[in-house]
């Protein structure tokens, strides 16, 4: 797995924050796209996406609505919540809706990156299981299919 392989989408209405975060990720070799609201996020997720880092409180469509939509249409995409609204109730709701992790701002970039890496690894495993089921439960042929599509993250 190379860093560039992880297709990251950052979603936050705090433009100075999200732009700077994208820049810092780029300096570490990660390519991250940016969306500044929920609607932009749903449009952006039509492109191949592995991990979404998602704010909760945004004007218009909020993070929960984005999360619900993503999990409905792209269930393999992993969603990490990164929010300034740190209530326990929101955290429980986010996990119940399928969020991979719940982080509160401000977070250390290394903690965020660690979470992104783990989320990506989980996504690969989930993808393998999904393909395996589609291949009639044959795990090895699922592995071959994913290798062909270069989705196993074994390039490094």
């Amino acid at each position, binding site marked *: 797995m190379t860093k560039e392989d992880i297709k990251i989408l950052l979603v936050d209405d705090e433009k100075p924050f999200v732009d*700077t*975060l994208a820049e810092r990720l780029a300096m570490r070799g990660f390519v991250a796209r940016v969306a500044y609201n929920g609607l932009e996020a749903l449009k952006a997720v039509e492109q191949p996406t592995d991990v979404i880092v998602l704010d909760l*409180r945004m004007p218009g469509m909020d993070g929960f609505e984005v999360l619900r939509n993503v999990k409905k249409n792209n269930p393999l995409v992993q969603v990490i919540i990164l929010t300034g609204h*740190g209530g326990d109730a929101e955290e429980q709701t986010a996990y119940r809706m399928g969020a991979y992790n719940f982080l*509160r701002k*401000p977070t250390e970039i290394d903690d965020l990156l660690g979470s992104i890496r783990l989320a990506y690894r989980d996504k690969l495993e989930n993808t393998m299981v999904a393909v395996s089921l589609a291949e009639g439960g044959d795990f090895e042929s699922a592995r071959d299919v994913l290798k062909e599509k270069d989705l196993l993250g074994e390039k490094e």
Partner: protein
Amino acid sequence: MNENQCMARLLASAVHDMRNILAIVRESAGLAQDIAAFAAGQKAAKDGAGLSARGDRIVASLEEVQRAVQQGAALSEAMDYMAQAGGADGRNTSGPCDLTRTCRSFQLLAARQARAVQMVLINGETEEPVWINAPALNVLRSLLEVFDLCAAVGGQVTLRFTAGRLHKQEGIVVDVLDGPNREMVLAVLTGAHVLSTMPFGWKAALMPWRDTGSRYFLSLVASETDNQ
């Protein structure tokens, strides 16, 4: 909406903004640190030397900014906890509450007031959470009263608050550790017994812990009588 909920909602809103501000500061300072580290690496590769004294000063300043952000983040978490305890998210605030988290939040929230009277507040570690069937705001209130008792006799003491149990009852172990005013503080806490600022329906008591002389157990129970 009652007064607590009103304050809690506004506090939660402000904390949300504060977290966003801290996040921007953290990322902006982090980006500057990244650029400085990159420049230092390039300079080392070029001439084998590190950054100039001014460059080192900038790096040190940015580290200071990050430390301040860390403190701000911890304080935000405590304020968020208080907002939730006050019913910011519209949920039931009657309990139960996690005493370990409540002690930690109190220590952060009261730190500035403690410094003003030369008191040090320490949060004792517990191996597992201790839950009490009481509103978190009432627990914070009882801790603040203990603090006020100590401050009223001059402060200058170190207090440690640890969630714990005594005879199967959940509460907070209060240790008076050291400081020039320790004896006065011990005297006032020993004479306190029932705290006076609890709302109707609740009773908070401060009991000396067996024979230790410097340890107390703060209990909080529902009561059908007014404690005034």
